[in-house]
């Protein structure tokens, strides 16, 4: 191995400029991979974490005919569908609670509605909850600005509104009085008891919590429930468990993964696009490496022939030239990792309001060392792949042909 290094290291110093360019190419691929992955994973993991915290891990709901309807036509005076209820929910809750993987179960009555404040109004999703049971099955309190969940118990006309709902209505403090319009046309004067901020735009912009009893009487659906939410120990088991529950529950049982499958599949596409970009960058640098080694081999035919004459075998020659690819790969990975690290630091230091699928102050980055390990692995893989063919060609040269052609 010594003799391979002895020769390879000297030969590497040839074609300095091209080698530097190749190393930079690999570094770019590596830093792009690290930064883009950590941004994407950071965003996605944040989103998923919020979803897991906010949304039921598993939800039981009536099987609604999945007709797409305009939300506004539904709002205006349409009767709640006959099927929009869960019969025997008390027994079902008891049954589910017995499962050791289940941490808590709570019933809900969910409806649409409109909130009015002065001249402004806002279509909303009303979640009728039992303030005693709800915290067992969701960690809604974590997202409350004033932690006033129990006010819904004491004040039966209290509501908790999403911050963006509040914003549209010009409400940013508890205590404001709003008019709630139910789909059946009945109205109720409610008081804002708290605001709710999750960071997930579509949730903060629609959700309003109210006491389930209040909602039941407003909708004239006494004792009715149309959703059961379940919190479980291991969120990754949600899909499996939901299938198990499904076998004895005559309603639709849906895991959070299923409820958010559109987002999850968008994330997959997002990841694929990123990896394709990184792949393209690395492919370009691989061609660079290929080129350098091929040119070096052609230029150094004589040297290869004499090395063979003095006893270097084909394997030695192969390794000598692959070493070039290896060094470029390692150097590229090192520089790229440093650049990636610096970029991560920079991105994390920026404070700005991000408004989109999620709202955060600044970028959320996933900074796992795994990304660096993957990057090293990819860059080495590409560099070695690119250097193999020209190195192999070098190792198959016939020294006699070269000596004769002098």
């Amino acid at each position: 191995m010594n003799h391979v290094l002895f020769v390879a290291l000297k030969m590497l110093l040839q074609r300095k400029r091209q080698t530097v360019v190749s190393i930079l190419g690999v570094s770019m691929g590596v830093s792009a991979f690290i930064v883009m992955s950590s941004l994407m994973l950071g965003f996605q993991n944040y989103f998923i974490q919020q979803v897991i915290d906010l949304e039921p891990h598993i939800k039981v709901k009536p099987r609604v005919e999945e007709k797409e309807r305009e939300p506004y036509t539904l709002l205006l005076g349409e009767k709640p569908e006959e099927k929009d209820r869960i019969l025997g929910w008390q027994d079902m809750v008891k049954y589910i609670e017995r499962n050791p993987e289940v941490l808590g179960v709570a019933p809900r009555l969910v409806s649409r509605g409109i909130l009015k404040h002065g001249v402004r109004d806002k279509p909303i999703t009303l979640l009728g909850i039992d303030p005693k049971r709800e915290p067992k099955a969701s960690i809604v309190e974590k997202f409350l600005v004033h932690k006033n969940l129990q006010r819904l118990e004491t004040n039966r006309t209290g509501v908790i509104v999403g911050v963006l709902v509040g914003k549209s209505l010009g409400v940013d403090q508890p205590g404001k009085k709003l008019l709630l319009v139910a789909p059946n046309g009945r109205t109720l004067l409610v008081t804002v008891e708290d605001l709710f901020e999750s960071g997930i735009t579509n949730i903060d912009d629609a959700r309003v919590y109210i006491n389930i009893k209040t909602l039941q009487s407003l909708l004239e659906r006494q004792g009715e429930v149309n959703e059961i939410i379940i919190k479980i120990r291991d969120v990754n088991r949600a899909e499996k468990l939901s299938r198990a529950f499904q076998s004895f529950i005559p309603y639709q049982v849906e895991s959070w993964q299923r409820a958010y499958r559109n987002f999850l599949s968008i994330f997959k596409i997002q990841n694929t696009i990123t990896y394709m970009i990184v792949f393209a960058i690395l492919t370009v640098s691989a061609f660079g490496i290929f080129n350098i080694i091929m040119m070096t081999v052609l230029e150094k035919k004589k040297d290869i022939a004499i090395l063979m004459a003095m006893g270097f075998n084909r394997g030695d020659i192969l390794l000598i030239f692959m070493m070039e690819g290896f060094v470029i790969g390692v150097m590229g990975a090192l520089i790229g990792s440093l650049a990636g690290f610096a970029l991560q630091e920079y991105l994390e230091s920026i404070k700005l309001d991000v408004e989109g699928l999620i709202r955060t102050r600044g970028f959320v980055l996933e900074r796992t060392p795994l990304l660096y390990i993957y990057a090293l692995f990819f860059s080495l893989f590409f560099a070695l792949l690119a250097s193999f063919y020209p190195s192999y060609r070098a190792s198959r040269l016939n020294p006699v042909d070269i000596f004769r052609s002098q």
Partner: protein
Amino acid sequence: MKVIELRGIRKSIGQEEILKGIDLSVQVGEFLAIVGASGSGKSSLLYIMGLLDKPTEGEVFFEGERVDFSEEKRLSELRNKKIGFVFQFHYLLPEFTLLENVMLPAIKLGMKKDEAEERAYELLNSLGLGGKERRRIYQISGGEMQRVAIARALINSPSAILADEPTGNLDSKNSQRVMEIFKEINRRGTTIVMVTHELELAEQAQRLVEIKDGAVLSDRAIQRA
């Protein structure tokens, strides 16, 4: 004892047969000169003797071992340990100093770097290159380059030195100097096979083989006055 033995060696390139059945043995300690017209097949013969090229037909024995030309590793190993090549062109590597060039075969053999360096120093010094060890090839003369190449061929103390027109690029003074070095090496027991155009140099060897059209035309010992 034979260092190299060729039996019925034939070599064809395409349709053309360039070696036509050569039987030749080189004894241990011999200094053999091979002469012949240009294109007669001298280099081709030397490549086969040096295990760099494989014959189309026939057998090669190296120190009694029948050479299997499909065993590339073994061929390389034999070349590394037992054979030293000197060509018309020096083929020194431009990235390396003279010292490093000489060390290369020893490093490949697995010698420690210090030891290889010490041997290379000694050899360069004994060939009149003392003080120039750290130079590069473009900083020395053609005659000096060829002596560096000889030092490189010698570093692993090979059984045989195979030289293909080692003086082809040198003036008569430098040519004679190379000859003196070869004679001295030979006196110390290393077998030498040298291909040359120049009869004057060839006659300083002990045995003269003449090749014509890929066959041995004559093979005689050289009488000294």
